[in-house]
């Protein structure tokens, strides 16, 4: 009984956490790490796909959260704001590693000859049975990971992390039309790759 009481963690809600961070309470940062660290790490891993980079990204994100908390005005959920800070830190890391060396044309035609290439095994053949949610998840993640940069990161930031076009443009240092073009191309390429799994669901 005592043991269970001793290990019980009282989880502060995010409003209280934000208040404590704004009061420069370092213990609040430790609580943040305990409550949200895995999600921050997950965002960092998803974008960098590299454990060492992801570890550095989480540390950079924590520094940015600590330094910029006074600018958080509560217009979005605190968790969304933290994830955006982390995604931005991950992008900085990718940029340092020169993952965004080339740009892409803005025009997208109605055919798919110019779509980004996706290397996904076995997506051409229609599945002979309904996939479980986990199996579908594996196929979707493989398709996204099969996208070349900058399409992969763009679709992750927009459709998974739900960052706005303006935020993505600022983070990736490109124009909003360029973000829209990349995102549209990425979605069309993913749609094509995932069609065997999607067509029976519409």
């Amino acid at each position, binding site marked *: 009984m005592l043991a269970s009481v001793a290990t019980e963690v009282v989880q502060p809600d995010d409003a209280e956490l934000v208040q404590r961070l704004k009061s420069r309470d*370092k213990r609040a*940062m*430790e609580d943040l*790490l*305990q409550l949200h*660290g*895995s*999600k*921050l*790490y*997950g*965002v960092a*891993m*998803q974008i960098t796909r590299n454990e060492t980079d*992801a*570890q550095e990204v*989480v*540390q950079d994100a*924590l*520094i940015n959260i*600590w330094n910029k908390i006074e600018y958080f005005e509560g217009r979005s959920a605190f968790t969304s704001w933290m994830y955006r800070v982390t995604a931005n830190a991950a992008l900085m890391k990718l940029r340092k590693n020169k993952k965004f060396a080339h740009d892409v044309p803005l025009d997208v*035609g*109605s055919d798919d000859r110019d779509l980004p290439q996706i290397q996904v095994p076995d997506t051409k053949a229609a599945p002979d049975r309904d996939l479980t*949610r986990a199996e*579908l*998840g594996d196929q*979707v*993640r493989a398709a*996204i990971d099969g996208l070349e940069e900058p399409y992969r990161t763009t*679709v*992750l930031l927009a*459709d*998974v992390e*739900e960052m706005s076009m303006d935020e993505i443009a600022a983070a990736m240092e490109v124009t909003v039309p360029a973000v*829209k073009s990349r*995102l*549209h191309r990425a*979605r*069309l390429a*993913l*749609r094509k790759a*995932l*069609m065997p*799994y*999607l*067509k029976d*669901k*519409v």
Partner: protein
Amino acid sequence: MIQGVINYFKCLLNLSDCKNVHKLLFDYVEGNLPVEKHTKLSAHLRDCPLCLEYVNTYKLTIQTCHDCCQPKDEMPPELADKLRTFIQKEL
């Protein structure tokens, strides 16, 4: 079967509208089209099953990516320890 053939020919008659769907798809799905264009495109989708399937699978791709790709990596305990020390000593 017959309905499918009818729909196919209806789509052939409306090729310019179908091309518009490809051109306007992104802004249509993002809700960025002016009302008049949005209404016109919605009307076309009611008449054109091929375009409707195209738009619906595009939307479903977005939804599926969102639902299936939420990060699920657990932070390694040694990294958590390292970051806790960093917070205590460096912030």
